[in-house]
């Protein structure tokens, strides 16, 4: 009985230590757990994959802060890699002030990789021709509505002060009608706003990625067709990285793939703790009831 009582009273420091080990060990040594991309990750990947190269640009709004970086930044990287590897033009913006630094550095990393491998100017990722960085703009819903009227209202110039009309790929882009897909990567309710304002009001095709904890909020929009696909937390990011590698668009190390190993082990650990806690709870409850009956 003492054993079961102890089982339901494990010191929290042991729990913390086990969680730390469950995170650190899989990150140090890749476990290579099998990948099975989810339905909605695949739908989003296919939506980007169907956009013709060197045509109208995809918009990615990197609406996340560093606190959500481990889950959401790999999504941004995988999606941007996919677009630029296929020569699908890319516009990147953010509605989170701290998202600008993350997105800009991510873009720089990807374009450096592509340009280091490129054999000719046509294979390179050229700023203004293949991608633009619009930067941060305050106003959330107002910015989305402004893009629906004319993107120049929200962004007269890019993040570096260059007027949009001076950038070759932006000359024919006016509003959502010229953007085949809007992707929002967010850990907050901003994705909801994109669905409501860009999707419902301006008929834009909206996809995106969210943290695992908030992804349940978007299932109604997936079923109604108001979202073309969804990346669900670390699993969604890992799915996208896997699909990129499977279709030959990227050979970059899979950051979320590695993270998914750690997430899997931590999930198992948490499930183990729940079982232990419940076993201890029921055994001690039963013994307390027996004691009460004897008295």
């Amino acid at each position, binding site marked *: 009985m003492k054993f079961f009582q102890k089982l339901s009273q*494990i010191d*929290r420091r042991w*729990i*913390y230590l*086990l*969680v*730390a080990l469950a995170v650190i060990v899989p990150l140090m040594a890749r476990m290579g*757990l*099998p*990948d*099975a991309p989810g*339905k909605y990750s695949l739908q989003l990947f296919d939506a980007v994959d169907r956009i013709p190269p060197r045509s109208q640009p995809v918009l990615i709004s990197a609406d996340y*802060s*560093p*606190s959500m*970086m*481990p889950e959401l930044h790999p999504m941004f990287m995988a999606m941007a890699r996919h677009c630029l590897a296929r020569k699908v033009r890319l516009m990147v913006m953010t509605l989170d002030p*701290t998202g600008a*630094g*993350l997105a800009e*550095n991510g873009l720089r990393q990807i374009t450096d990789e592509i340009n280091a491998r490129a054999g000719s100017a046509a294979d390179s990722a050229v700023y203004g021709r293949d991608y633009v960085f619009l930067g941060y*703009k*305050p*106003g*959330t819903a*107002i*910015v989305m*509505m*402004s893009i629906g*009227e*004319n993107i120049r*209202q*929200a962004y007269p*110039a890019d*993040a*570096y*002060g260059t007027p949009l009309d001076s950038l070759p790929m932006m000359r024919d882009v006016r509003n959502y009608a010229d953007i085949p897909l809007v992707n929002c990567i967010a850990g907050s309710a901003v994705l909801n706003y994109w669905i409501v304002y860009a999707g419902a009001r301006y008929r834009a095709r909206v996809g995106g990625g969210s943290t*695992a904890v908030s992804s*349940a*909020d978007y*299932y*109604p929009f997936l*079923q109604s067709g108001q979202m073309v696909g969804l990346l*669900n937390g670390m*699993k969604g990011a890992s799915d996208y990285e896997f699909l990129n590698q499977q279709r030959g668009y990227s050979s970059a190390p899979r950051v979320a793939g590695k993270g*998914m190993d750690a*997430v*899997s082990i*931590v*999930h*198992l*650990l*948490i*499930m183990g*703790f*729940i079982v232990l*806690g*419940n076993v201890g*709870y*029921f055994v001690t409850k039963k013994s307390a009831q027996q004691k009460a009956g004897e008295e």
Partner: protein
Amino acid sequence: MKRQLPLMIVLVLGIAFTVQFFIPSRASEVTYQTALQWWLVMSSFAMVLALGSLVNHHVLKIKRRKEHWAFSWVTLAGLLVMGALGIMGGPSVGLRWANAAYNQLFLFVQAPMDSAMFAILAFYMASASYRAFRARSKEATVLLIAGFVVMLGIIPFGAMLWRRIPDISEWIMMVPNMASKRGILLGIGLGSTATALKIILGIERSWLGGSGK
């Protein structure tokens, strides 16, 4: 007048832009586009307000030597350094060293600190699930089983245990979860509409400050 003027502006603009949505004319479109530009400018002022509020709060804290007042110096110093580097490194001034310093501070100080704060959640969640996630009632048992299956469905071990687990996990998300989410969304929609109407008609006045009376 101090209260009546904002109420009047909200009433007139609220009704005007509700009507505007249903008028597909050129004049209506131009009005809407002009208003959007105004709103963009106005929303930027929210940043100025937030900045003023932050500085005011921390300066007062330092002046009155409130608990942990020394940390307010760190906040103000961070604000000043990042703000100054951001402006000097931005497109209008364009100092490359300032831009590089801003990026280094952001990537190697702010980002890890922010991520570390959020990562601590994993420890609390593990500890809380062990202590609080108990099958104390029928409802709690249903929640426990559903949570278990969804967690297993997300990780590769679920399919390794039984190949139908990811399907069951998806069914839970697409049927019971969605039924409740739809109910919540409809409630939020109706509530937002009712609140918007109350604000436009001046019934709800708490946004003016004070007790709302």
